[in-house]
């Protein structure tokens, strides 16, 4: 059964939740339901963000919620086998594959291959009921501090998503591929909640793919909380590929303990309006965060990467590298705040945001920021728009390469600086091929996918 309620604004979203509170609470543990009320209050207080909200200066979310759509406070049984419907088009990508549908763990997931002992991988809702101790203490610890209204809306309405727990000293070699599918008969607002817990000295890699399987209007509100214990290592690749009319709102919160390492790579290949929030707290000495992102956007797509890194203790390092290539009427935004708190000495934090506009009508707004409250630090940020290395161009031309080709080579190198950080070889090759053909104007991003995600 699908609850269909029409609304247009913050209050109506709040009413929708309040009227259906019992359905939302149903099947969830108390600790989860208690958080809903707190989060709802915070959401209502801030409201759906417009450009007046400094954090959303370049992305107005109000129009997003003005369309009619349905919400799914209960799991909906699918009529067809999603494994038949969806095939990952990256050849020979050897992963543990997990499907999610409209924010819910897919009930007919094929059996996941052999995972090391003690690893828990599955539905958040299920684990909440079966092993609440794994979740209760940490749930909403990171998102709960945030005053972001969309994060709070997630906490208000979330019921399911993915859960991963890797015990101390366990390393999962094979990447875990999580495919977030959007597939419904009507326009849908999907809410998904994930949690990743990496024990001491553990290691895991996740490939997080977003796909729309038809052309209905989708809003995905996808929030992940991620806990890295001492000496753990976590790689998180997000490959975003939704159709031009879809809205993808992601939050990624991470808490890093001593000597842990986080590596993220957000690759936005397509989407109508994409807003990625990454919030990293370096809470243990010698922790390291490495955040990368590449956006290829055209048509009227709007992509906003909003990063905050808090250096809370001494001796941590962080690196941000975000690039945007924008064509047609696409617009991009970037904010990459580094905050070095008092006494977080010996911090090294770097940030770079480089952008290229390919058309007269594309637009880029960037807001690199440094907030430094300790003196013995090395911090820098750099941002460029439109900068192509003319010396390199000249060098290539003196070697007999035509200007157009030389420019493409340089543009590809521009994008490849981010892609080369992808450590899964077949995925990297696939992405490189896509980017290369895209730069040459040979294809829309998903022409070779099983669905053409462009709106007809």
């Amino acid at each position, binding site marked *: 059964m699908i609850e269909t309620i029409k609304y247009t604004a913050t209050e109506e979203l709040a009413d929708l939740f309040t009227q259906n509170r019992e359905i939302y609470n149903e099947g969830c543990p108390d600790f989860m339901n208690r958080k809903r009320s707190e989060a709802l209050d915070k959401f209502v207080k801030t409201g759906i963000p417009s450009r007046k909200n*400094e954090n959303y*200066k370049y992305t107005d979310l109000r129009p997003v919620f003005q369309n009619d759509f349905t919400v799914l406070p209960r799991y909906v049984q699918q009529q067809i086998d999603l494994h038949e419907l969806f095939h990952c088009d990256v050849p020979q990508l050897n992963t543990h594959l997990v499907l999610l549908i409209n924010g819910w763990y897919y009930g007919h997931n094929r059996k996941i291959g052999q995972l090391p002992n003690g690893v828990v991988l599955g539905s958040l809702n299920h684990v909440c009921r079966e092993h609440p101790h794994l979740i209760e203490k940490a749930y909403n610890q990171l998102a709960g501090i945030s005053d972001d209204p969309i994060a709070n809306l997630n906490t208000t309405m979330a019921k399911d998503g993915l859960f991963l727990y890797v015990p101390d000293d366990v390393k999962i070699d094979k990447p875990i591929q999580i495919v977030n599918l959007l597939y419904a008969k009507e326009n849908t607002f999907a809410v998904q909640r994930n949690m990743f817990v990496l024990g001491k000295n553990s290691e895991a890699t996740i490939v997080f793919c977003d796909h729309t399987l038809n052309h209905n209007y989708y809003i995905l509100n996808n929030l992940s909380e991620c806990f890295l214990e001492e000496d753990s290592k976590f790689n998180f690749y997000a490959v975003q590929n939704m159709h031009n009319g879809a809205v993808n709102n992601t939050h990624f919160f991470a808490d890093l303990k001593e000597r842990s390492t986080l590596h993220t790579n957000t690759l936005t290949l397509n989407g109508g309006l994409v807003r990625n929030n990454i919030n990293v707290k370096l809470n243990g000495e010698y922790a390291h965060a490495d955040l990368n992102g590449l956006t290829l956007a055209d048509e009227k797509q709007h992509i906003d990467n909003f990063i905050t890194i808090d250096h809370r203790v001494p001796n941590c390092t962080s690196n941000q590298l975000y690039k945007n290539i924008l064509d047609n009427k696409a617009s991009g935004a970037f904010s990459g705040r580094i905050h070095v708190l*008092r*006494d977080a*000495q010996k911090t090294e934090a770097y940030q770079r945001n480089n*952008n290229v*506009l*390919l*058309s*007269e*009508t*594309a*637009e*880029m*707004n*960037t*807001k*690199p*920021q*440094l*907030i*430094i*409250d*300790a*003196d*013995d*630090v*090395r*911090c*820098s*940020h*750099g*941002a*460029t*728009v*439109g*900068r192509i290395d003319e010396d390199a161009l000249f060098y290539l031309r003196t070697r007999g390469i035509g200007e157009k080709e030389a420019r493409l080579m340089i543009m590809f190198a521009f994008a490849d600086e981010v892609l080369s950080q992808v450590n899964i070889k077949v995925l990297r090759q696939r992405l490189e091929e896509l980017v290369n053909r895209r730069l040459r104007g040979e294809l829309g991003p998903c022409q070779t996918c099983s669905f053409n995600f462009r709106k007809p």
Partner: protein
Amino acid sequence: MTEQDKILDTVTKQEYKYGFVTDIESDTIEKGLNEEVVRLISAKKQEPQWLLDFRLKAYRKWLEMKSPNWAYLKIPSIDFQDIIYYSAPKQKKQLNSLDEVDPELLETFNKLGIPLEEQKHLAGVAVDAVMDSVSVKTTFKETLAERGIIFCSFSEAVREYPDLVKKYLGNAVPYADNYFAALNSAVFSDGSFCYIPKGVRCPMELSTYFRINAANTGQFERTLIVADDDSYVSYLEGCTAPQRDENQLHAAVVEIIALERAEVKYSTVQNWYPGDKNGKGGIYNFVTKRGICRGDFSKISWTQVETGSAITWKYPSCVMLGDHSTGEFYSVALTNNHQQADTGTKMIHIGKNTRSLIVSKGISAGVSNNSYRGLVKVASRADKARNFSQCDSLLLGDKCGAHTFPYIECSNKTAILEHEATTSKISEDQIFYCNQRGIGTEDAIGMIVNGYAREVLNKLPMEFAVEAQKLLQISLEGSVG
């Protein structure tokens, strides 16, 4: 704690040397602000109706506006009814020669090292001295007049050149531009006006020296500079205030209009009283400065050295309307003790082939906070616009903060924008190297800070550069035992 930290930690604030008060009779109105006060100021200055209308529009708008509430800037709430909006040194009649100026007043400016007596003035700087927002004396008027240059007090300009003032007032900074600009537009008492005619290169530096003297008084001066086609002028501004326990408000507006191929260089050395080492007293310095490069190939260049004020809030900006026009911003902002500086620029590219350059050097010591806040905006028709921004921060000690908030908005694919920012401290190795050559730690830090700021100091006219250099050293004294 290392030795250097200890040195940095010992904060014994050097006396602010301009902190004296001059005993001059002044014509002061009751404190408080309402529409009647606005009318009274205008009446006292015998202003024409259009100017009163401008003030009233601004005042009504201001009532609807709110004080800026920005991240990492604390502006305490200001009781606008507790401020005197008009205080002029009493003058019995129009002055014809220097002999008629109140000797106390002359003494004030002499103490500040600003000789108003022309014969003493070898350096050839024309000075307009403004005390409590009222222009006291303008020097070298005749020399300038020979070339058709108008350099006088704002009130005089309203009387003598109403058409020019009417034409350009509010062009660069509209009365409703922001909270403090609106306040200024409503209650400004005086300031400087400058017009450089077509094809004239101003033969000397023009300078305004601002001095707040009276207690409980806000200073609201307004400067308007118009550079006609093919003209050039370099303009200097200096400021000091007495040492007082209460905070005083300074909300000024500076407007620059550069027409075809005109070039205006505006330099500021701002040394308002910063408050004592515990953060008591000091000037709230809320200034709106904006230039419009209206003509093709015109250029406006802002250079500022900001060492004073309890709070500095200013963003000298350039709107590049004309094709091939250029905007520049060079800034050194030094904060010590409890000072806050929130400064930067807006570079708005509208014309084609426009260029802008931003060099900002922040230096924080004590428990101060120093922020760069800036915007570079390229409109869609600004083909081949080019910007380079360099925003560096230097921290002295572990209790201060340095923040960088740049905004870059680009809607043109042929534009090239580059922004770089770094944060660093003075390295112990650099200090040791100086020590090894016999240079004490305090001198070494002063030397390194001046070296760090040199790129900007070099942009100042010679005399100012020397003063600024000393100022940087003095402002740091005490922050390094």
